[in-house]
């Protein structure tokens, strides 16, 4: 076979492989959206879940999912950012650093159910936090930290070395170079890392079943005092998320419209992830453009 034919064949194989990936993705997404979207309604979004009858909504689950995402990101982002800056910029290339990196990689492939049970033992039982949003957020932080750290580290390492040299050669300290030059340049990559991990958090069920719990408490959306027991912001209340709700109505749920509810919830979950993704990218691009003056 001559080079030209080989090249054509290779190109064809690559196209086929890409096609398979796209088909699978489109199939899953299409299936979820087609079966779920027709059942989405304002009523579904704005009413409480029902325990026995048909016609329940996911108001609280949606709020809980978003709230857990925000809380987890608030807790894990500073830690991951600090760890990533250390690994990318300060850590010497020796066996300790390699050990840390390997540990992080192993942790990032930890099954989420293990994280959930660990969180149950540590936060729920040992720390006495009970089934609560804070237990869930801490478990999700454990779940999220390794991958977020690796992603941010990669983003920081992706900034060309000559940018650091330029900063240092101007008499900037190491930290000022990192903060003022390296981090802004790494922002798009850092953002991608946050978005990827946010998708994982939002869709996570196993880590939450034993930490945030599977039941909701009565929530009063007029009460925004985080210390009030009925406030949506109260971190000590148990909270069922969208993903846990899907799992529950399909396993132990006794509502007659379980199929419809789980289809609609799945669609909602996917849509929120997409909206979050696009929104974060939009804001990130805006911020990046502001920082880099690229117009």
């Amino acid at each position, binding site marked *: 076979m001559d080079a030209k034919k080989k090249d054509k064949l290779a190109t064809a194989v690559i196209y086929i492989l890409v096609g398979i990936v796209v088909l699978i993705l489109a199939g899953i997404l299409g299936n979820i959206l087609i079966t779920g979207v027709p059942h989405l309604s304002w009523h579904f979004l704005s009413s409480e879940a029902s325990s026995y009858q048909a016609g329940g909504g996911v108001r609280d689950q949606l709020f809980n999912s978003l709230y857990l995402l925000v809380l987890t990101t608030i807790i894990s982002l500073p830690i991951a950012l600090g760890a990533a800056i250390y690994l990318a910029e300060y850590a010497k290339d020796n066996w300790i650093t390699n050990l840390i990196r390997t540990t992080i990689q192993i942790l990032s492939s930890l099954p989420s159910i293990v994280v959930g049970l660990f969180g149950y033992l540590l936060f729920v039982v040992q720390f006495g936090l009970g089934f609560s949003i804070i237990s869930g957020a801490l478990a999700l932080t454990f779940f999220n930290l390794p991958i977020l750290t690796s992603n941010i580290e990669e983003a920081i390492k992706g900034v060309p070395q000559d940018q650091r040299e*330029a900063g240092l050669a101007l*008499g900037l300290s190491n930290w000022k170079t990192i903060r003022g030059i390296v981090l802004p340049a790494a922002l798009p990559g850092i953002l991608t890392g946050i978005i990827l991990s946010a998708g994982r958090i939002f869709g996570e069920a196993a880590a939450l079943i034993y930490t945030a719990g599977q039941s909701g408490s009565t929530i009063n959306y007029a009460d925004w005092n985080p210390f009030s027991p009925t406030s949506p912001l109260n971190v000590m209340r148990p909270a069922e998320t969208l993903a846990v709700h899907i799992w529950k109505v399909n396993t132990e749920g006794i509502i007659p419209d379980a199929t419809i509810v789980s289809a609609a919830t799945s669609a909602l979950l996917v849509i929120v992830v997409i909206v979050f993704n696009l929104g974060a990218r939009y804001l990130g691009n805006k911020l990046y453009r502001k920082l*880099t003056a690229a117009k």
Partner: protein
Amino acid sequence: MQQELKQSYVKTFAKDDLELSTKDLSVLYGGKVQKLFDASLQFKKNTITALIGASGSGKSTFLRSLNRMNDRVATVNGEIWFHGLDVNKPNINVYELRKNIGMVFQRPNPFPKSIRENIVYALKADGQTNKNELDKIVEESLRAAALWDEVKDKLDKSALALSGGQQQRLCIARALAVKPEVLLLDEPASALDPVSTSKLEDTLKQLRSKYTMIMVTHNMQQASRISDYTAFFHLGHVIEYNSTADIFTNPKGKITEEYIQGSFG
């Protein structure tokens, strides 16, 4: 080989003319690989000195030692005298030193920020906030780097939209903004086309009246065009250092002559 590394001539200057000098500067990478051996060179005020030599001859290593950019990657032994201080001592504030000895790199490396911000970023980080003062420095620096007329209407546009040659002159302007006395240039034109290179050379020639410049170059014509003095490095040793005219027309060392004639390197 040993004979080839013999020093043929190293020029010296009167003490009052000196801007910067090194004594027995040696550089070791990883504690064992020696890249530079006992380099003792003196640099005269308001001149351009070219450092020439084949790849791996130690000229870039030497240059990067002068503003302590090698601190984190190598061990630098010896003395670097600047303003009556041995600035290679550990107690020297390297950040202050680098403001006095600026550097321009091989590839243009503007920050992904606006043109203005590229120039004032280091000043702002240092606590300068007076906007009028900063604007003045932006104009002065860009004028000095012969870039002002080309960019004065787009100071707030991204520096990355400039051409390679303009980016490199921006990097010079950025280095000048912190008011250095010495400018180290590490093959500053190697990534530029001939037109941009010639503009850059004109800029450097104009800067000579105010700054002392030390420039690594692989381009013999460039060295002979713009430098006053030339040091020839070979395998980590300074072989010959003299006025550029002498080095190029009347080299004292056999190996210097061979290199200049293009027999190797």
